């Protein structure tokens, strides 16, 4: 499934080359940062020679959503100091989505780490290939960035299907996202995650704290 990263990486590499930055920077940034959404924004910042402080603050604001992943990413199943270190480094949105999903509950440490490594390689490899071929590729290839939307759509459909009967969760998420988009578009992700988490907590309190978590046959929850 991580293969969706290849077209996305190519789109990134092509964009960097078309902005006039050398190919080695694509290879370096995609491998060392490994945070796709901010990397797309970083192209514009470095070509405008933005101060490093501004880059740090923007990276923080775009990536602060990762704080929420620590609540449910199965790091407790990853073994070894090196493995855990790499696992937190390569904790992309997509790696989180795949490993925190229902079907991954039985995955071993090795399986989680290999999945993360392959996604990392697909991204960096696609990006480097895109950068090297960039001058030969027409601008329209940047429409490849739809691969990211398609990837999240597929992951959302699977995750919602895993929690059959739990309609309030995706509805609450959708409302949080739309509200954040309307009220605070510049920090949409952070605001949406915060609203969604607050909504879930409110629902948890309202439906009774004794509800067993992860139990899909639990009684119908009320709307938060």
């Amino acid at each position: 499934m991580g293969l969706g990263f290849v077209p996305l990486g190519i789109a990134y590499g092509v964009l960097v080359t078309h902005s006039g930055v050398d190919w080695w920077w694509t290879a370096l940034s995609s491998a060392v940062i490994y945070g796709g959404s901010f990397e797309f924004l970083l192209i514009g910042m470095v070509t405008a020679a933005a101060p490093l402080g501004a880059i740090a603050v923007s990276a923080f604001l775009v990536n602060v959503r990762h704080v929420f992943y620590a609540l449910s990413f199965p790091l407790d199943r990853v073994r070894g100091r090196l493995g855990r270190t790499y696992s937190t480094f390569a904790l992309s949105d997509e790696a989180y989505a795949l490993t925190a999903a229902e079907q991954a509950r039985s995955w071993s440490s090795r399986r989680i780490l290999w999945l993360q490594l392959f996604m990392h390689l697909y991204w960096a490899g696609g990006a480097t290939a895109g950068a090297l071929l960039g001058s030969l590729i027409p601008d329209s290839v940047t429409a490849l960035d739809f691969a990211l939307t398609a990837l999240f759509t597929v992951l959302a459909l699977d995750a919602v299907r895993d929690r059959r009967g739990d309609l309030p969760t995706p509805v609450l998420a959708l409302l949080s996202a739309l509200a954040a988009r309307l009220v605070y578009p510049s920090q949409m992700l952070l605001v949406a995650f915060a609203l969604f988490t607050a909504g879930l907590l409110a629902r948890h309190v309202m439906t009774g704290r004794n509800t067993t978590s992860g139990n899909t046959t639990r009684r119908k929850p009320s709307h938060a």
Partner: protein
Amino acid sequence: MPDTPYLIAAVLVTAAVTWGLRALPFAVLAPLRASSTVQYLSTRMPAGIMVILVVYCLRDLPLTEPRVLAPSAALAVTVGLHLWRRNALLSILGGTAVHVLLASTVLRS
């Protein structure tokens, strides 16, 4: 093109911030993982977070312009393929191909 030391520094700064945000919360939240509230959240967050990320990707849709058709058609194809075949790679590649095709031909902005 900006100079090389600056380009490298920009990558290192971004990488440090990104990794910090990914790794540090585990240390802070470790004692909380056993709580029933965190477990309640952790079973429900993945589905909701994915929905939010989809909306985020589509946040700048040009709703009043004809070129909105490219992402809309691509999204419909992705969802349709996935509900039909349940093959993630097929759904992603199919939707992306439709998007590239429409965006670069009929709906050129």
